[in-house]
């Protein structure tokens, strides 16, 4: 069933589609033409025919999919792309390097699709822009009021002091951080604090894309399964928490950087010692703030606590409804080339 969210975005069983551009937005499976908001695997499926995204996202997409042979169409922030009766613009989303929100404007109104976003500043991505729109499709990964994160300085301070305390005690600081975005951000923070970093391969291989964007990592090196030297911190994705890479280090202090670190249970789930609720997503307050600044007539919520956040918005007089999450989407059929609704 196809549900038009606005004349220019449809929610189909396979995902979100912008017919004016004959393109899918962040589709869960390969398609002829995809508009990608950022290069995280859950938004950027492999094997698209054509990819529209920021140059940074395209660079990261290529690093993650070295065999990709499709066509890239790099779009700078603010660059206007005309379509069939509509105009498309990518706006900064502040989530990770290259991340974008998608804005579609027509004479009959406008739509803003946030992708993943955050309002607070960071070292490797510009903060999200709030462009007014009549329809807002917002992510709601942390769409419950228990998810409120401290400010950036406080979080960076907690990371640095946890690492310093570990080093002082003779323990190896092990920082659990997602490979794209969080790891490089943490490496930059630790570099400034005079702590050298050893990066898991998944994060290391993305560094050239960050370096091309003007970020430097002079005291980082790739992990080589050898020892982590005194004074160094090891950075690994959370999925490595139970692997030998970490477990073989008997003297370790595991620092978990994630919005999910709000939950005490993540301590036992990831065998973590220090929980730092540092997220690349908007927290609950910022989700509300973004809705307020965009001032839409209608909101659709996506990912995480979509139904709860829609209910909370509704109780505040903003009509909102949840969209099915990516894992509920059907595969896009190979025959899909038509823009017809």
């Amino acid at each position, binding site marked *: 069933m196809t549900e038009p969210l606005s004349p220019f975005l449809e929610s189909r069983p396979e995902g979100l589609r912008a017919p004016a551009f004959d393109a899918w937005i962040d589709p869960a499976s390969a398609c002829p033409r995809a508009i990608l908001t950022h290069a995280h695997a859950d938004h950027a499926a492999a094997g698209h025919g054509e990819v529209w995204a920021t140059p940074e996202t395209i660079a990261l997409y290529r690093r993650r999919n070295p065999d990709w042979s499709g066509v890239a169409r790099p779009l700078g922030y603010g660059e206007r792309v005309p379509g069939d009766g509509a105009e498309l613009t990518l706006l900064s989303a502040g989530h990770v390097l290259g991340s974008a929100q998608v804005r579609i404007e027509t004479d009959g109104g406008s739509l803003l699709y946030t992708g993943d976003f955050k309002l607070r500043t960071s070292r490797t991505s510009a903060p999200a822009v709030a462009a007014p729109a009549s329809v807002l499709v917002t992510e709601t990964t942390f769409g419950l009021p228990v998810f409120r994160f401290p400010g950036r300085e406080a979080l960076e301070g907690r990371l640095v002091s946890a690492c310093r305390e570990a080093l002082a005690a003779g323990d190896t600081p092990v920082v659990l951080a997602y490979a794209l975005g969080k790891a490089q951000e943490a490496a930059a923070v630790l570099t400034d604090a005079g702590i050298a970093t050893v990066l898991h391969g998944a994060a290391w291989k993305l560094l050239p894309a960050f370096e091309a964007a003007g970020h430097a990592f002079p005291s980082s090196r790739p992990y080589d399964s050898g020892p982590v030297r005194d004074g160094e911190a090891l950075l690994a994705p959370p999925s490595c928490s139970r692997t030998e890479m970490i477990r073989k280090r008997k003297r370790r202090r595991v620092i978990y950087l994630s919005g999910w670190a709000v939950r*005490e249970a993540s301590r036992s789930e990831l065998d973590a010692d220090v929980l730092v609720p540092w997220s690349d997503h908007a927290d609950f307050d910022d989700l509300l703030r973004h809705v307020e600044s965009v001032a839409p007539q209608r909101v659709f919520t996506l990912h995480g606590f979509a139904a709860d956040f829609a209910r909370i918005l509704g109780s505040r007089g903003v009509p909102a409804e949840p969209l099915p999450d990516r894992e509920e*989407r059907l595969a896009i059929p190979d025959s899909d080339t038509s823009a017809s609704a």
Partner: protein
Amino acid sequence: MTAYRTLAEALERVASSRGRLAKVAVLAEALRAVGPEELAVGARLLSGSPFAEWDEAVTSVGWATVVKAAVAVTGWDPDTIRACASAIGDLGEAVSLLMPPQTENGLAVGEVDALFRSISRARKPAERGAMLEEALRRSGAVEAKYLLKTLSGGLRIGADVTTVEEAIASAFSADREAVARARRDSGDVGETAAAARTGALDAIAFRLFHPIGFMLASPIEEAEEVEPELPAFAVEDKFDGIRAHAHKDGPRVALFSRTLDEVTAQFPEIAARLGQGDGTWLLDGEIVAWRDGRPDSFFKLQRRLGRKAPEPELLEEIPAAFVAYDCLAAGGRPLFESPWGERRAELERIGAESGIVVSKVSSASSAAELEALFVQARERGNEGLVLKRRDSAYQAGKRGRAWRKWKKALATLDVVVTAVEQGHGKRAGMLSDYTFAVQDGERLVNIGKAYSGLTDEEIRRLGTRWRKTTLERYGPVRAVEPTLVIEVSFDSIQKSARHKSGFALRFPRIVRLREDKPVSEITTLDEVRELYARVSGEGADKPRSSGSP
């Protein structure tokens, strides 16, 4: 006057310290910071219990009552609070994250104690709710968190009461063993802390009819683990019942459960039986359903649980008995420090005198012999084996290596997933709970439901599959196309009307995904019947060779 916040913050530090020593150090510091007159209460609160272990008082505050108080204090609606609790995986933690900034003076330790006592005396949920709401209004986030965790019956900070014992010893330079003994005999970590501070631990003595902690066994996975030590161990069947201590002084009898609650009235036939004859003693053992001179299934005993006084019909239908396997005191003399061998001799003397059922003891000199004993125990309808070091003292309230238990999964079944639903905590929003079936001719018949065993990543990957193959939705449950085969293990199998197959599994968990296996090759109901016949000793209804390739 000590602020409760001091204790709550200490508990928060305990949660985030790695290793027992670090946790003990934080607790010891907190104990020293509590004033002498509040030390008993402080020590209890640090161990996560509102009252002394022997105290029958309970703070039954239900989920709904806490949600209601949280609505009043945080201003969030019940749906949001419930969603938050599910997302965080702990209601107390979720409420603490929703707490507004503290405006009033915090609670003192003594006030928290008074709150718990008033709550335990209140008759109506509404009264308890009002008391809780008032306390929450005066709390900051960290106080609210530990207040609610204590009410919910568990701090889950990686420290238990024995960690607090160690902290007491460290804080007041007392002997670790003396602290443990005093806590065991007093049934109160608070009284113990106060006595340790003044060097009066020796004044605490064993009292009959005062509940005592239970010695617990550590699990083993296979016989080889204990093979080198086997000569030192006595071997007994592991009964599938309710662990209990029986205190007796002539006709007076009291039964205490693992939670140190008195359950005497629930088992009048046992109390009457043990009350016969003379004797003054404390026996450790198991309450089991009893039929034809041997233990019957735990599933039967379950129907006797949670009733204050059973009706005569139920007593007749499911009689219970006490099987004794240890003697902790005889003639007023405590035997905790005596080796198991001496206690056993005393137990056998009491058994011979009174006719009370006493467990049988055997020994094994090799893994193979132990394996044979295991099979025999299973054939008798018991869960497995317990091994007890003959030279070991009774370490009340501890899980040590002097006692070992061996249960092992009964078998594995290849089953197909027929329905899925959302899990809780971090798995909220993930379809992580699976109902599964075996085949009966052309039909699939459900036999159980498993919650664990898969990684988050596997669950997430399969989530897509379930959403695409949903046939029907019943509230939170999705019936799905039966296409995925999984291998499940379990501890025992029972007849049950709960599932269509007529059987139920105890502790089922997913061993692995069998995406390689077609549904036509899953376990058949006949194979399940044969398995049941084998382990229960009952004849199979319809034995037939299985056609599974």
